[in-house]
């Protein structure tokens, strides 16, 4: 108790509590480092900020649920990051910053001790403390419909050490756990709300979070309304807005027109074909947000033709990624060298994407016993840009005699076929995770039964590498391991990687203070309207 380690001292007197809070406020700056501090100090003075107003956000589909432990949809996360808070958060370099946990330490590789922020209340007035934290973890692990089980699978035990300290015991070392806790798996929900409301939490999240905004109402297919949390614990910066109003607008053209006519202020995603027009429009502000995503095609290793490595490589050499990114995606993204995007610290800049080489492609065809080519079926989602990409690929492969038949299906069928390994080549667009583990382990590690390893790849070298990346905690060493993985993946080809897309967002010029983070989540805490 008398320890002087920052974050381990429990505040008693009022003055010391204020002092500790000041430290907590500075902690994010320390995580940023000196350049980060300089950048923060260079921000415009708060005097220019205007409080008030309602910001109207347009999304492409309706949210599915307001319960972060049961959610599988990306749109839900956009709302969550404003009403709920995770234990740790991401900065714009994908570094881990304190969130509801003001500090953490690992006394050994299988233990994670989190020191929680004190003085934080849920919107319903109850305190956030270690008991609440443990309640949340247990719920994620035991609630039957929890979608977070896989994400917290490495957690074996959750122990309350004192009112603001939690000790997580891990089944195995998990270097990726902290990054996972920056999203839904780390979001804290009020235990009182869960106990009182049960399943109704999915539709009504009033009082459930700790974030800068609180849930007001959700009129299905019409809007979700949040309002400012005036009792928010973080007194630095916002929230400034009075309200946030989310509207589902399924049609992209109509969404853009709504922004242009001033009916909405923010658009979550601009289609590549509209990007040039948005950038040219002086009444709109376009922000390119490089994402964590990787878009690829999985190849089925368990049956012909792609159980033969030379044929997989023939396909990879016959494709022209530069052309696809330029012609189909209009350069809204970069060609991919593997599953890890350039936004990640683990990105291997030394390994370029596979370059088109028809000579090598033909050589691989011969090696695979199909010198005159072969044909196969590619399954993809029936949306315009996927269809365009498929047609371009079809033409490129035809140049070496590989005939690709295109099979268009809807999303549920795609998922079902992928899980059942009922495909030869199948489209796979992964939205990405902050830790490279989230873009790799579950896809390339040997996994019997139904899993996200749709290709069925089972390679002991890859397995060993992936296991090692979870055990090792040094970022430098993990980066080396992921670099090696990238090289092996370009050889073994469980997937043909196409692009790391950019997610352009568009705003009305009234919107100020938006800070893009590569996870694509729109956090409105410090946003204000002119």
């Amino acid at each position, binding site marked *: 108790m008398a320890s002087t380690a920052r974050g381990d001292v429990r505040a008693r007197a009022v003055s010391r509590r204020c002092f500790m809070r000041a430290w907590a406020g500075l902690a994010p700056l320390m995580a940023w480092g000196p350049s980060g501090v300089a950048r923060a100090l260079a921000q415009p003075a708060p005097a220019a900020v205007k409080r008030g107003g309602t910001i109207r956000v347009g999304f492409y589909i309706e949210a599915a649920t307001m319960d972060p432990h049961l959610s599988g949809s990306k749109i839900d996360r956009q709302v969550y990051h404003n009403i709920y808070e995770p234990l740790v958060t991401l900065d714009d370099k994908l570094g881990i910053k304190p969130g509801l946990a003001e500090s953490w330490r690992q006394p050994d590789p299988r233990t994670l001790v989190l020191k929680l922020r004190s003085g934080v209340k849920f919107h319903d007035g109850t305190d956030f403390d270690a008991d609440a934290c443990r309640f949340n973890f247990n719920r994620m692990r035991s609630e039957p419909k929890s979608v977070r089980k896989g994400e917290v699978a490495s957690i074996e035990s959750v122990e309350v050490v004192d009112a603001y300290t939690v000790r997580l015991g891990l089944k195995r070392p998990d270097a990726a756990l902290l990054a996972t806790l920056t999203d839904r798996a780390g979001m804290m929900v009020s235990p009182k709300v869960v106990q009182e409301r049960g399943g109704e939490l999915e539709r009504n999240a009033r009082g459930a979070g700790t974030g800068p905004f609180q849930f007001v109402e959700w009129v299905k*297919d019409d809007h979700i309304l949040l309002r400012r949390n005036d009792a928010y614990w973080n007194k630095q910066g916002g929230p400034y807005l009075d309200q946030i109003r989310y509207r589902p*607008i399924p049609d992209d053209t109509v969404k853009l027109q709504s922004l242009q006519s001033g009916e909405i202020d923010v658009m979550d995603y601009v289609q590549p074909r509209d990007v040039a027009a948005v950038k040219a429009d002086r009444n709109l502000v376009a922000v390119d947000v490089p994402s964590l995503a990787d878009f690829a095609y999985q190849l089925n290793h368990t049956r012909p033709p792609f159980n033969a490595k030379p044929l997989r490589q023939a396909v990879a050499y016959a494709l022209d990624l530069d052309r696809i990114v330029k012609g189909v995606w209009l350069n809204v993204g970069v060609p991919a060298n593997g599953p890890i995007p350039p936004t990640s610290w683990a990105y291997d800049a030394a390994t370029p994407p596979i370059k088109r080489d028809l000579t090598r492609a033909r050589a691989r065809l011969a090696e695979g016993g199909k010198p005159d080519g072969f044909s196969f079926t590619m399954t993809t989602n029936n949306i315009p840009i996927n269809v365009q990409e498929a047609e371009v690929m079809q033409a490129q492969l035809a140049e070496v005699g590989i005939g690709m038949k295109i099979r268009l299906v809807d999303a*549920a*069928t795609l998922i079902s076929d992928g899980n059942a390994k009922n495909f030869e080549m199948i489209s796979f667009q992964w939205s990405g995770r902050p830790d490279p583990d989230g873009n790799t382990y579950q896809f390339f590690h040997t996994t019997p039964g139904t899993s996200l390893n749709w290709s069925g790849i089972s390679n002991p070298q890859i397995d060993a590498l992936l296991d090692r990346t979870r055990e090792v905690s040094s970022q430098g060493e993990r980066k080396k391991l992921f670099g090696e993985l990238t090289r092996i993946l370009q050889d073994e080809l469980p997937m043909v990687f196409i692009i790391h897309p950019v997610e352009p967002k568009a705003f009305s010029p009234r919107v100020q203070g938006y800070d893009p983070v590569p996870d694509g989540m729109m956090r409105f805490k410090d946003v204000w309207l002119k």
Partner: protein
Amino acid sequence: MGRLILRRLLATVPVLLLVTAGVFALIHLTPGDPVDAMMAESQDAAARESLRRELGLDRPLYAQYAAWMGRLLRGDLGRSIRNQEPVVENVGRRIRPSLELAALAMAISIAVALPIGLITAARRNTSIDRLGTLFTVVGICMPNFLIALLLIFLFGVTLRWLPISGYTDPLEEPLAGLRSLLLPAVTLGLALAAVVARTLRSSMLEALAEDYVRTARAKGLSEGAIIRGHVLRNALIPVVTVVGLQLGTLIGGAVITEYVFALPGVGRLVVDAVFARDYPLVQGVVLLIALGYILSNLAVDLLYGWIDPRIRYR
């Protein structure tokens, strides 16, 4: 009349049985199930299996169908898999925008089609007739979403007279509601009006060629009086048929219009439910739409009897 209605209602039962069996088979046999859709990002196979068991999806198809029919006969349409709310509540919430849109679209279509059909028939082979025909051809051939986007661009973006998307209930806020429904109703209404106008024109021409019309002209009646008093009612039968069919489809939800204008209607509901493989919701909605369609057809048949006394059912 009463016996007719009763007979027709009894006849709907086998139709509904066929419809439900057909939809059930189709949606269950399509690859993919709601668990796949809901837990797409989860690698937890055990959790998926337990959810499947909980939803009864691991039982054989006939058992699932029997279970659903059993609940149906007790008046229970089940709960949506995605949001756990009763199907009836889901539909109830979404049916109002669809019905309002249908009513408004129908009103616009009749208001536009009647004059055009009448005038083009009365002034046949003149330039007015050709103009009217041009309108109907364009209305029939132009795709729904194209009309929608053009109207949005003109009235929403350029002139800023009307909201681009979204829905306000006219029964709660009449002016705002009407403004939010106007563009979608005009989109649907124009396409329907084209068909109705065409039908009216051809049936009017047929009626105008009848002998009794010649007699009436010989008696000295004006053209207007002839049309109003004698021809129009006779020409209406095919038109009522067409309008009835259109009403049926409108009740089913004008899916594309609802998507483009972001209206929370039944059409979008059922399409989203199909994509998510939300079985109870799809089955329930299709059943209700089929029922609505059958009832509107019944109403149309009864209307025949009122319009044309020669058509009376025994």
